[in-house]
Protein backbone atom coordinates (compact mmCIF):
# COMPACT_ATOMS: atom_id res chain seq x y z
CA UNK A 1 0.00 0.00 0.00
CA UNK A 2 2.78 2.38 0.95
CA UNK A 3 4.71 1.61 -2.24
CA UNK A 4 1.56 2.05 -4.27
CA UNK A 5 0.93 5.42 -2.64
CA UNK A 6 4.53 6.49 -3.27
CA UNK A 7 4.06 5.64 -6.93
CA UNK A 8 0.76 7.47 -7.03
CA UNK A 9 1.76 10.67 -5.23
CA UNK A 10 5.48 10.66 -5.73
CA UNK A 11 6.15 12.01 -2.26
CA UNK A 12 7.23 9.61 0.43
CA UNK A 13 6.19 11.77 3.38
CA UNK A 14 2.64 12.35 2.14
CA UNK A 15 2.35 8.68 1.22
CA UNK A 16 3.49 7.68 4.70
CA UNK A 17 0.94 10.01 6.27
CA UNK A 18 -1.92 8.66 4.18
CA UNK A 19 -0.83 5.10 4.85
CA UNK A 20 -0.65 5.80 8.57
CA UNK A 21 -4.05 7.51 8.63
CA UNK A 22 -5.86 4.59 7.00
CA UNK A 23 -6.54 2.73 10.30
CA UNK A 24 -8.44 5.80 11.54
CA UNK A 25 -10.75 5.37 8.59
CA UNK A 26 -11.39 1.93 9.97
CA UNK A 27 -11.39 2.69 13.72
CA UNK A 28 -13.93 5.50 13.82
CA UNK A 29 -16.68 3.68 11.88
CA UNK A 30 -15.87 0.55 13.83
CA UNK A 31 -16.29 2.35 17.15
CA UNK A 32 -19.57 3.88 15.99
CA UNK A 33 -20.73 0.44 14.95
CA UNK A 34 -19.23 -1.30 17.96
CA UNK A 35 -20.93 0.87 20.57
CA UNK A 36 -24.28 0.36 18.90
CA UNK A 37 -23.62 -3.38 18.65
CA UNK A 38 -22.69 -3.49 22.33
CA UNK A 39 -25.96 -1.85 23.30
CA UNK A 40 -28.02 -3.95 20.94
CA UNK A 41 -26.38 -7.20 22.05
CA UNK A 42 -26.81 -6.17 25.68
CA UNK A 43 -30.45 -5.35 25.08
CA UNK A 44 -31.37 -8.51 23.24
CA UNK A 45 -29.51 -10.74 25.65
CA UNK A 46 -31.65 -9.31 28.44
CA UNK A 47 -34.81 -9.60 26.34
CA UNK A 48 -34.87 -5.86 25.77
CA UNK A 49 -34.59 -3.96 22.52
CA UNK A 50 -31.72 -1.54 23.09
CA UNK A 51 -31.76 1.88 21.46
CA UNK A 52 -34.75 2.22 19.16
CA UNK A 53 -35.33 5.95 18.70
CA UNK A 54 -32.67 7.43 16.44
CA UNK A 55 -33.03 6.14 12.93
CA UNK A 56 -34.41 2.74 11.98
CA UNK A 57 -34.06 0.55 15.10
CA UNK A 58 -31.69 3.13 16.54
CA UNK A 59 -28.88 2.67 14.01
CA UNK A 60 -27.87 6.33 14.30
CA UNK A 61 -27.82 6.32 18.11
CA UNK A 62 -24.04 6.35 18.36
CA UNK A 63 -23.78 9.19 15.86
CA UNK A 64 -26.19 11.21 17.98
CA UNK A 65 -24.23 10.30 21.12
CA UNK A 66 -21.02 11.34 19.43
CA UNK A 67 -22.37 14.79 18.59
CA UNK A 68 -23.69 15.10 22.11
CA UNK A 69 -20.24 14.32 23.50
CA UNK A 70 -18.69 16.92 21.20
CA UNK A 71 -21.05 19.58 22.47
CA UNK A 72 -20.48 18.83 26.13
CA UNK A 73 -18.51 21.10 28.35
CA UNK A 74 -14.94 20.03 28.85
CA UNK A 75 -14.74 20.16 32.62
CA UNK A 76 -11.33 20.37 34.25
CA UNK A 77 -11.73 20.45 38.01
CA UNK A 78 -9.51 22.37 40.39
CA UNK A 79 -6.70 20.49 42.12
CA UNK A 80 -5.99 18.47 39.00
CA UNK A 81 -2.59 18.20 37.41
CA UNK A 82 -3.86 19.83 34.25
CA UNK A 83 -0.95 19.11 31.95
CA UNK A 84 -1.04 15.36 32.38
CA UNK A 85 -4.78 15.26 32.82
CA UNK A 86 -5.25 16.76 29.38
CA UNK A 87 -2.58 14.57 27.87
CA UNK A 88 -3.67 11.17 29.25
CA UNK A 89 -6.64 10.37 26.95
CA UNK A 90 -4.56 11.07 23.88
CA UNK A 91 -1.79 8.86 25.20
CA UNK A 92 -4.26 6.03 25.74
CA UNK A 93 -5.62 6.45 22.26
CA UNK A 94 -2.13 6.71 20.79
CA UNK A 95 -1.27 3.42 22.48
CA UNK A 96 -4.21 1.57 21.02
CA UNK A 97 -3.78 3.26 17.66
CA UNK A 98 -0.14 2.30 17.48
CA UNK A 99 -1.18 -1.36 17.69
CA UNK A 100 -2.97 -0.97 14.36
CA UNK A 101 0.31 -0.18 12.65
CA UNK A 102 1.35 -3.82 12.78
CA UNK A 103 -2.02 -5.41 12.03
CA UNK A 104 -2.21 -6.90 8.55
CA UNK A 105 -5.58 -5.79 7.20
CA UNK A 106 -4.96 -7.60 3.93
CA UNK A 107 -2.03 -8.98 2.00
CA UNK A 108 -1.72 -5.55 0.35
CA UNK A 109 -2.15 -3.30 3.37
CA UNK A 110 -0.23 -3.32 6.61
CA UNK A 111 0.64 -0.09 8.36
CA UNK A 112 4.25 -1.01 8.95
CA UNK A 113 5.47 -4.37 7.72
CA UNK A 114 8.06 -4.88 10.41
CA UNK A 115 9.60 -8.26 11.16
CA UNK A 116 8.95 -7.85 14.88
CA UNK A 117 5.24 -7.19 14.43
CA UNK A 118 3.83 -9.07 17.40
CA UNK A 119 6.69 -8.10 19.66
CA UNK A 120 6.01 -4.48 18.78
CA UNK A 121 2.32 -4.94 19.61
CA UNK A 122 3.05 -6.38 23.06
CA UNK A 123 5.46 -3.54 23.74
CA UNK A 124 3.29 -0.72 22.52
CA UNK A 125 0.09 -1.89 24.17
CA UNK A 126 1.89 -1.25 27.47
CA UNK A 127 1.56 2.43 26.63
CA UNK A 128 -2.13 2.14 27.43
CA UNK A 129 -1.26 1.31 31.05
CA UNK A 130 0.83 4.45 31.29
CA UNK A 131 -2.05 6.51 29.91
CA UNK A 132 -4.57 4.96 32.27
CA UNK A 133 -2.32 5.43 35.28
CA UNK A 134 -1.74 9.01 34.25
CA UNK A 135 -5.47 9.62 33.92
CA UNK A 136 -6.24 8.05 37.29
CA UNK A 137 -3.45 9.71 39.18
CA UNK A 138 -3.89 13.22 37.85
CA UNK A 139 -7.65 13.17 38.36
CA UNK A 140 -7.12 13.77 42.08
CA UNK A 141 -10.01 11.45 42.84
CA UNK A 142 -9.77 8.31 44.94
CA UNK A 143 -12.02 6.26 42.70
CA UNK A 144 -10.01 7.20 39.66
CA UNK A 145 -6.83 6.27 41.43
CA UNK A 146 -8.26 2.93 42.53
CA UNK A 147 -9.33 2.20 38.98
CA UNK A 148 -5.99 3.15 37.53
CA UNK A 149 -4.03 1.08 40.02
CA UNK A 150 -6.26 -1.92 39.52
CA UNK A 151 -5.89 -1.50 35.80
CA UNK A 152 -2.13 -1.37 36.05
CA UNK A 153 -1.99 -4.45 38.28
CA UNK A 154 -4.35 -6.30 36.00
CA UNK A 155 -2.74 -5.48 32.69
CA UNK A 156 0.77 -6.12 33.95
CA UNK A 157 -0.11 -9.55 35.35
CA UNK A 158 -2.19 -10.62 32.37
CA UNK A 159 0.56 -9.68 29.97
CA UNK A 160 2.47 -12.74 31.16
CA UNK A 161 0.06 -15.45 29.89
CA UNK A 162 -0.53 -13.41 26.75
CA UNK A 163 3.17 -13.21 26.06
CA UNK A 164 3.63 -16.92 26.80
CA UNK A 165 0.91 -17.97 24.37
CA UNK A 166 2.30 -15.62 21.75
CA UNK A 167 5.69 -17.15 22.38
CA UNK A 168 4.33 -20.64 21.76
CA UNK A 169 2.71 -19.44 18.54
CA UNK A 170 5.98 -17.86 17.49
CA UNK A 171 7.74 -21.17 18.15
CA UNK A 172 5.20 -22.96 16.00
CA UNK A 173 5.22 -20.56 13.07
CA UNK A 174 8.81 -19.46 13.35
CA UNK A 175 8.07 -15.83 12.70
CA UNK A 176 7.27 -12.64 14.61
CA UNK A 177 5.76 -10.88 11.64
CA UNK A 178 1.97 -10.93 11.67
CA UNK A 179 1.76 -10.64 7.89
CA UNK A 180 3.92 -13.70 7.47
CA UNK A 181 1.96 -15.56 10.14
CA UNK A 182 -1.28 -14.84 8.29
CA UNK A 183 0.27 -15.82 4.99
CA UNK A 184 1.21 -19.22 6.43
CA UNK A 185 -2.41 -20.05 7.26
CA UNK A 186 -3.51 -19.55 3.70
CA UNK A 187 -6.55 -20.73 1.74
CA UNK A 188 -8.97 -22.84 3.75
CA UNK A 189 -9.98 -22.98 7.39
CA UNK A 190 -8.35 -26.33 8.11
CA UNK A 191 -5.02 -24.61 7.56
CA UNK A 192 -5.64 -22.24 10.46
CA UNK A 193 -3.31 -22.43 13.41
CA UNK A 194 -6.12 -23.50 15.68
CA UNK A 195 -6.37 -26.65 13.56
CA UNK A 196 -2.65 -27.20 13.76
CA UNK A 197 -1.36 -25.00 10.95
CA UNK A 198 -0.90 -25.54 7.24
CA UNK A 199 1.62 -28.34 7.45
CA UNK A 200 0.09 -31.78 6.91
CA UNK A 201 1.66 -34.31 9.22
CA UNK A 202 0.63 -36.24 12.31
CA UNK A 203 1.82 -33.34 14.49
CA UNK A 204 -1.11 -31.34 13.14
CA UNK A 205 -3.50 -33.69 14.91
CA UNK A 206 -1.37 -33.64 18.04
CA UNK A 207 -1.36 -29.86 18.09
CA UNK A 208 -5.11 -29.30 17.86
CA UNK A 209 -6.03 -29.67 21.59
CA UNK A 210 -3.10 -27.51 22.65
CA UNK A 211 -4.01 -24.92 20.07
CA UNK A 212 -7.53 -24.81 21.47
CA UNK A 213 -6.14 -24.47 24.98
CA UNK A 214 -3.81 -21.75 23.78
CA UNK A 215 -6.69 -19.93 22.13
CA UNK A 216 -8.75 -20.06 25.32
CA UNK A 217 -5.87 -18.84 27.47
CA UNK A 218 -5.05 -16.07 25.04
CA UNK A 219 -8.64 -14.98 24.71
CA UNK A 220 -9.18 -14.84 28.47
CA UNK A 221 -6.04 -12.87 29.11
CA UNK A 222 -6.75 -10.53 26.20
CA UNK A 223 -10.14 -9.84 27.77
CA UNK A 224 -8.35 -8.77 30.92
CA UNK A 225 -5.92 -6.65 28.94
CA UNK A 226 -8.64 -4.57 27.33
CA UNK A 227 -10.51 -4.26 30.65
CA UNK A 228 -13.63 -6.04 29.52
CA UNK A 229 -16.09 -7.80 31.79
CA UNK A 230 -15.59 -10.15 33.66
CA UNK A 231 -12.28 -8.35 34.19
CA UNK A 232 -13.51 -4.76 34.09
CA UNK A 233 -12.14 -3.97 37.52
CA UNK A 234 -10.64 -0.62 36.43
CA UNK A 235 -14.00 0.72 35.32
CA UNK A 236 -16.35 -1.16 37.63
CA UNK A 237 -19.31 1.21 37.33
CA UNK A 238 -21.01 -0.19 40.40
CA UNK A 239 -18.10 0.28 42.78
CA UNK A 240 -15.75 2.88 41.32
CA UNK A 241 -18.23 5.18 39.52
CA UNK A 242 -16.32 5.08 36.25
CA UNK A 243 -12.80 4.18 37.28
CA UNK A 244 -9.97 6.13 35.75
CA UNK A 245 -12.22 8.22 33.49
CA UNK A 246 -14.58 9.42 36.22
CA UNK A 247 -13.32 13.01 36.00
CA UNK A 248 -13.31 13.21 32.23
CA UNK A 249 -16.06 14.68 30.10
CA UNK A 250 -16.79 15.62 26.55
CA UNK A 251 -14.20 14.95 23.90
CA UNK A 252 -11.60 13.58 26.30
CA UNK A 253 -14.02 11.02 27.62
CA UNK A 254 -14.85 10.03 24.07
CA UNK A 255 -11.13 9.54 23.43
CA UNK A 256 -11.11 6.94 26.20
CA UNK A 257 -14.14 5.34 24.67
CA UNK A 258 -12.55 5.33 21.25
CA UNK A 259 -9.39 3.79 22.67
CA UNK A 260 -11.36 1.11 24.51
CA UNK A 261 -13.25 -0.02 21.43
CA UNK A 262 -10.18 0.28 19.22
CA UNK A 263 -8.37 -1.95 21.72
CA UNK A 264 -11.19 -4.47 21.67
CA UNK A 265 -10.90 -4.81 17.93
CA UNK A 266 -7.10 -4.90 18.10
CA UNK A 267 -6.99 -7.89 20.45
CA UNK A 268 -9.74 -9.63 18.51
CA UNK A 269 -7.77 -9.10 15.33
CA UNK A 270 -4.71 -10.45 17.09
CA UNK A 271 -6.65 -13.57 18.08
CA UNK A 272 -7.76 -14.02 14.51
CA UNK A 273 -4.22 -13.55 13.17
CA UNK A 274 -2.68 -15.94 15.67
CA UNK A 275 -5.27 -18.70 15.51
CA UNK A 276 -7.86 -18.08 12.82
CA UNK A 277 -5.95 -17.30 9.67
CA UNK A 278 -5.87 -13.51 9.88
CA UNK A 279 -7.16 -11.92 6.73
CA UNK A 280 -7.49 -15.20 4.86
CA UNK A 281 -10.87 -16.41 3.77
CA UNK A 282 -11.98 -19.69 5.35
CA UNK A 283 -13.69 -20.87 2.16
CA UNK A 284 -11.57 -19.56 -0.72
CA UNK A 285 -11.85 -16.32 -2.65
CA UNK A 286 -14.52 -15.13 -5.04
CA UNK A 287 -11.76 -13.23 -6.85
CA UNK A 288 -9.97 -16.49 -7.64
CA UNK A 289 -13.01 -18.19 -9.06
CA UNK A 290 -13.95 -15.14 -11.11
CA UNK A 291 -10.37 -14.55 -12.19
CA UNK A 292 -10.34 -11.05 -10.72
CA UNK A 293 -7.06 -10.71 -8.87
CA UNK A 294 -7.85 -7.13 -7.85
CA UNK A 295 -10.84 -8.24 -5.79
CA UNK A 296 -8.82 -10.42 -3.42
CA UNK A 297 -7.40 -7.64 -1.14
CA UNK A 298 -10.87 -6.24 -0.59
CA UNK A 299 -12.19 -9.68 0.28
CA UNK A 300 -9.30 -10.04 2.68
CA UNK A 301 -10.20 -6.77 4.39
CA UNK A 302 -13.74 -8.05 4.67
CA UNK A 303 -12.66 -11.34 6.24
CA UNK A 304 -10.26 -9.60 8.58
CA UNK A 305 -12.99 -7.22 9.77
CA UNK A 306 -15.54 -10.04 9.98
CA UNK A 307 -13.32 -12.22 12.14
CA UNK A 308 -12.38 -9.26 14.31
CA UNK A 309 -15.99 -8.24 14.75
CA UNK A 310 -16.97 -11.81 15.54
CA UNK A 311 -14.49 -11.93 18.41
CA UNK A 312 -15.64 -8.50 19.55
CA UNK A 313 -19.12 -9.99 19.60
CA UNK A 314 -17.87 -12.86 21.75
CA UNK A 315 -16.40 -10.29 24.15
CA UNK A 316 -19.79 -8.63 24.40
CA UNK A 317 -21.44 -12.01 24.77
CA UNK A 318 -19.16 -12.79 27.71
CA UNK A 319 -19.74 -9.36 29.17
CA UNK A 320 -23.48 -9.93 29.40
CA UNK A 321 -23.04 -13.49 30.65
CA UNK A 322 -20.55 -13.21 33.47
CA UNK A 323 -20.47 -11.05 36.58
CA UNK A 324 -17.35 -9.12 37.49
CA UNK A 325 -14.68 -11.08 39.38
CA UNK A 326 -13.21 -9.86 42.64
CA UNK A 327 -9.66 -8.53 42.76
CA UNK A 328 -8.38 -11.62 44.55
CA UNK A 329 -10.20 -13.89 42.09
CA UNK A 330 -8.69 -11.88 39.26
CA UNK A 331 -5.20 -12.51 40.59
CA UNK A 332 -6.01 -16.18 41.30
CA UNK A 333 -7.17 -16.74 37.75
CA UNK A 334 -4.04 -15.17 36.37
CA UNK A 335 -1.28 -16.49 38.61
CA UNK A 336 -2.66 -19.83 39.67
CA UNK A 337 -4.40 -20.95 36.52
CA UNK A 338 -3.56 -19.07 33.34
CA UNK A 339 0.20 -18.79 33.85
CA UNK A 340 0.85 -22.46 34.78
CA UNK A 341 -1.33 -23.64 31.91
CA UNK A 342 0.37 -21.22 29.54
CA UNK A 343 3.77 -22.53 30.59
CA UNK A 344 2.61 -26.11 30.15
CA UNK A 345 1.19 -25.25 26.75
CA UNK A 346 4.44 -23.58 25.77
CA UNK A 347 6.41 -26.65 26.81
CA UNK A 348 4.19 -29.14 24.99
CA UNK A 349 4.00 -27.09 21.80
CA UNK A 350 7.77 -26.71 21.95
CA UNK A 351 8.21 -30.48 22.16
CA UNK A 352 5.72 -31.07 19.35
CA UNK A 353 7.43 -28.59 17.06
CA UNK A 354 10.73 -30.37 17.75
CA UNK A 355 9.37 -33.72 16.57
Amino acid at each position, binding site marked *: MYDFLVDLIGNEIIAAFISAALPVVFIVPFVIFGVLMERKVA*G*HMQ*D*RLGPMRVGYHGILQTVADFFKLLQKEDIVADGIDKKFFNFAPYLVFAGSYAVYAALPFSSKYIGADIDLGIFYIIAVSGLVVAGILMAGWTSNNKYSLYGALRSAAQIVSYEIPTALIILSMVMLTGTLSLAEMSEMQTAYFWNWNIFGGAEWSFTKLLLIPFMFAGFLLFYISSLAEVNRTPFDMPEAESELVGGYHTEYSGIKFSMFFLAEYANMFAVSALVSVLFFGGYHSPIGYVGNTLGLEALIPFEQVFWFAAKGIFFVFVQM*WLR*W*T*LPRVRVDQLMTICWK*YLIPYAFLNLLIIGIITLI
Partner: protein
Amino acid sequence: MKQYLKNTWEGIWTVLIGMKITFKHLFVPAVTIQYPDVKVPLPERVRNRLYVNMDDCIGCDQCARACPVSCIEIETVKSLPTEDLGKTSNGKKKALWVTKFNIDFAKCCYCQLCVFPCPTECIYMTDIYEFSEFKREGLLYNFSTLTHEEVLEKKANFEKFQAEKEAQKAAEAKAKAEVAAKTKESENKSDTGSNKSENG
Protein backbone atom coordinates in the same frame (compact mmCIF):
# COMPACT_ATOMS: atom_id res chain seq x y z
CA MET B 1 -4.08 -31.42 42.05
CA LYS B 2 -7.38 -33.14 41.40
CA GLN B 3 -9.21 -30.16 42.87
CA TYR B 4 -7.15 -27.85 40.68
CA LEU B 5 -8.10 -29.66 37.47
CA LYS B 6 -11.70 -29.85 38.60
CA ASN B 7 -11.71 -26.08 39.21
CA THR B 8 -10.33 -25.47 35.75
CA TRP B 9 -12.88 -27.71 34.14
CA GLU B 10 -15.74 -26.21 36.12
CA GLY B 11 -14.56 -22.72 35.25
CA ILE B 12 -14.67 -23.42 31.55
CA TRP B 13 -17.79 -25.54 31.63
CA THR B 14 -19.95 -23.17 33.70
CA VAL B 15 -18.94 -20.24 31.51
CA LEU B 16 -20.03 -22.25 28.48
CA ILE B 17 -23.38 -23.04 30.14
CA GLY B 18 -23.87 -19.36 30.87
CA MET B 19 -22.99 -18.44 27.32
CA LYS B 20 -25.47 -20.96 26.00
CA ILE B 21 -28.24 -19.38 28.07
CA THR B 22 -27.44 -15.83 27.02
CA PHE B 23 -27.15 -16.90 23.40
CA LYS B 24 -30.62 -18.41 23.57
CA HIS B 25 -31.93 -15.17 25.01
CA LEU B 26 -30.45 -13.27 22.09
CA PHE B 27 -33.27 -14.71 19.99
CA VAL B 28 -36.07 -14.51 22.52
CA PRO B 29 -38.49 -11.77 21.44
CA ALA B 30 -38.01 -8.68 23.57
CA VAL B 31 -40.57 -7.95 26.24
CA THR B 32 -40.08 -4.21 25.82
CA ILE B 33 -43.15 -2.15 25.05
CA GLN B 34 -42.25 0.90 22.99
CA TYR B 35 -44.09 3.11 25.41
CA PRO B 36 -45.15 6.36 23.78
CA ASP B 37 -45.96 4.52 20.56
CA VAL B 38 -47.43 1.38 22.06
CA LYS B 39 -49.29 1.38 25.36
CA VAL B 40 -50.25 -1.38 27.69
CA PRO B 41 -54.04 -1.81 27.65
CA LEU B 42 -55.42 -0.38 30.88
CA PRO B 43 -57.37 -2.47 33.39
CA GLU B 44 -61.12 -2.12 33.29
CA ARG B 45 -61.77 -0.04 36.42
CA VAL B 46 -58.60 2.02 36.22
CA ARG B 47 -58.62 5.40 37.95
CA ASN B 48 -57.01 8.23 36.04
CA ARG B 49 -57.71 11.86 35.33
CA LEU B 50 -61.25 13.01 36.04
CA TYR B 51 -63.48 14.55 33.44
CA VAL B 52 -66.64 16.56 33.99
CA ASN B 53 -69.27 16.68 31.32
CA MET B 54 -70.63 20.15 31.95
CA ASP B 55 -73.69 19.56 29.77
CA ASP B 56 -74.96 17.24 32.46
CA CYS B 57 -73.72 19.01 35.56
CA ILE B 58 -76.44 20.46 37.73
CA GLY B 59 -74.01 22.07 40.16
CA CYS B 60 -75.25 20.10 43.14
CA ASP B 61 -71.81 20.24 44.88
CA GLN B 62 -72.04 16.60 46.01
CA CYS B 63 -68.74 15.65 44.41
CA ALA B 64 -66.96 18.53 46.14
CA ARG B 65 -68.37 17.42 49.48
CA ALA B 66 -67.35 13.81 48.86
CA CYS B 67 -63.78 14.74 48.01
CA PRO B 68 -61.47 13.78 50.92
CA VAL B 69 -58.75 16.24 49.86
CA SER B 70 -61.04 19.09 48.79
CA CYS B 71 -59.60 19.36 45.35
CA ILE B 72 -62.91 20.21 43.67
CA GLU B 73 -64.10 23.79 43.86
CA ILE B 74 -67.61 24.62 42.71
CA GLU B 75 -69.40 27.95 42.64
CA THR B 76 -72.90 28.33 41.33
CA VAL B 77 -75.28 31.14 40.57
CA LYS B 78 -79.01 30.67 40.50
CA SER B 79 -80.59 31.11 37.12
CA LEU B 80 -83.44 33.52 36.48
CA PRO B 81 -86.89 32.00 36.13
CA THR B 82 -86.97 33.31 32.59
CA GLU B 83 -83.79 31.48 31.60
CA ASP B 84 -83.98 27.93 30.35
CA LEU B 85 -80.84 25.91 31.07
CA GLY B 86 -82.08 22.74 29.47
CA LYS B 87 -82.17 19.28 30.88
CA THR B 88 -79.51 16.73 31.69
CA SER B 89 -79.29 13.50 29.80
CA ASN B 90 -81.24 11.67 32.48
CA GLY B 91 -84.03 14.19 32.54
CA LYS B 92 -83.15 16.41 35.50
CA LYS B 93 -83.86 20.07 35.07
CA LYS B 94 -80.85 22.33 35.48
CA ALA B 95 -81.43 25.34 37.67
CA LEU B 96 -77.95 26.65 38.43
CA TRP B 97 -75.28 28.34 36.40
CA VAL B 98 -72.02 26.58 37.29
CA THR B 99 -69.72 29.56 37.26
CA LYS B 100 -66.71 27.72 38.61
CA PHE B 101 -65.79 24.05 38.44
CA ASN B 102 -62.09 23.62 39.17
CA ILE B 103 -60.34 20.35 39.89
CA ASP B 104 -56.77 20.61 41.13
CA PHE B 105 -55.06 17.40 39.98
CA ALA B 106 -52.02 18.25 42.04
CA LYS B 107 -54.21 17.60 45.07
CA CYS B 108 -56.38 14.84 43.62
CA CYS B 109 -55.72 11.41 45.11
CA TYR B 110 -57.63 9.51 42.43
CA CYS B 111 -59.91 7.81 44.97
CA GLN B 112 -62.95 7.98 42.74
CA LEU B 113 -65.18 8.95 45.69
CA CYS B 114 -66.53 11.94 43.77
CA VAL B 115 -67.81 9.76 40.99
CA PHE B 116 -70.42 7.81 42.97
CA PRO B 117 -72.54 10.59 44.50
CA CYS B 118 -73.09 12.39 41.21
CA PRO B 119 -76.81 12.22 40.43
CA THR B 120 -76.31 12.74 36.72
CA GLU B 121 -73.10 10.73 36.32
CA CYS B 122 -71.37 13.68 34.74
CA ILE B 123 -68.04 13.35 36.60
CA TYR B 124 -66.10 10.24 35.70
CA MET B 125 -62.61 8.77 35.24
CA THR B 126 -61.05 8.87 31.79
CA ASP B 127 -58.13 6.77 30.55
CA ILE B 128 -55.74 9.71 30.30
CA TYR B 129 -52.77 9.36 32.60
CA GLU B 130 -50.11 11.43 30.83
CA PHE B 131 -50.73 15.01 31.88
CA SER B 132 -47.58 16.07 33.67
CA GLU B 133 -46.87 19.79 33.69
CA PHE B 134 -43.88 21.99 34.26
CA LYS B 135 -45.79 24.25 36.62
CA ARG B 136 -48.19 23.26 39.36
CA GLU B 137 -50.74 25.79 38.10
CA GLY B 138 -51.01 23.74 34.93
CA LEU B 139 -52.65 20.97 36.91
CA LEU B 140 -55.59 23.18 37.86
CA TYR B 141 -58.26 22.21 35.38
CA ASN B 142 -61.21 24.46 34.76
CA PHE B 143 -64.26 22.61 33.53
CA SER B 144 -66.77 25.44 33.59
CA THR B 145 -68.02 26.25 30.12
CA LEU B 146 -68.80 29.84 30.94
CA THR B 147 -66.36 32.60 30.14
CA HIS B 148 -65.37 35.16 32.70
CA GLU B 149 -67.64 37.81 31.16
CA GLU B 150 -70.52 35.42 31.13
CA VAL B 151 -69.95 34.60 34.76
CA LEU B 152 -69.96 38.27 35.63
CA GLU B 153 -73.09 38.74 33.58
CA LYS B 154 -74.86 35.86 35.29
CA LYS B 155 -73.86 37.15 38.67
CA ALA B 156 -75.02 40.66 37.80
CA ASN B 157 -78.24 39.28 36.40
CA PHE B 158 -78.87 37.31 39.53
CA GLU B 159 -78.04 40.22 41.78
CA LYS B 160 -80.28 42.47 39.79
CA PHE B 161 -83.01 39.89 39.94
CA GLN B 162 -82.43 39.44 43.60
CA ALA B 163 -82.51 43.17 44.13
CA GLU B 164 -85.69 43.45 42.13
CA LYS B 165 -87.17 40.62 44.04
CA GLU B 166 -86.08 42.20 47.23
CA ALA B 167 -87.54 45.48 46.17
CA GLN B 168 -90.70 43.74 45.11
CA LYS B 169 -90.78 41.88 48.33
CA ALA B 170 -90.19 45.05 50.25
CA ALA B 171 -92.89 46.74 48.26
CA GLU B 172 -95.19 43.80 48.81
CA ALA B 173 -94.34 43.78 52.46
CA LYS B 174 -95.01 47.48 52.59
CA ALA B 175 -98.27 47.06 50.76
CA LYS B 176 -99.13 44.16 52.96
CA ALA B 177 -98.26 46.16 56.00
CA GLU B 178 -100.41 48.99 54.76
CA VAL B 179 -103.21 46.65 53.98
CA ALA B 180 -102.78 45.02 57.34
CA ALA B 181 -102.75 48.37 59.02
CA LYS B 182 -105.88 49.36 57.20
CA THR B 183 -107.67 46.19 58.00
CA LYS B 184 -106.56 46.48 61.57
CA GLU B 185 -107.96 49.92 61.76
CA SER B 186 -111.22 48.87 60.22
CA GLU B 187 -111.25 45.80 62.37
CA ASN B 188 -110.73 47.89 65.40
CA LYS B 189 -113.57 50.09 64.28
CA SER B 190 -115.82 47.22 63.46
CA ASP B 191 -114.72 45.53 66.61
CA THR B 192 -115.88 48.40 68.70
CA GLY B 193 -119.04 48.62 66.65
CA SER B 194 -119.79 45.01 66.99
CA ASN B 195 -118.94 45.11 70.57
CA LYS B 196 -121.29 47.88 70.84
CA SER B 197 -123.90 46.11 68.81
CA GLU B 198 -123.26 42.96 70.77
CA ASN B 199 -123.42 44.80 73.94
CA GLY B 200 -126.35 46.86 72.63
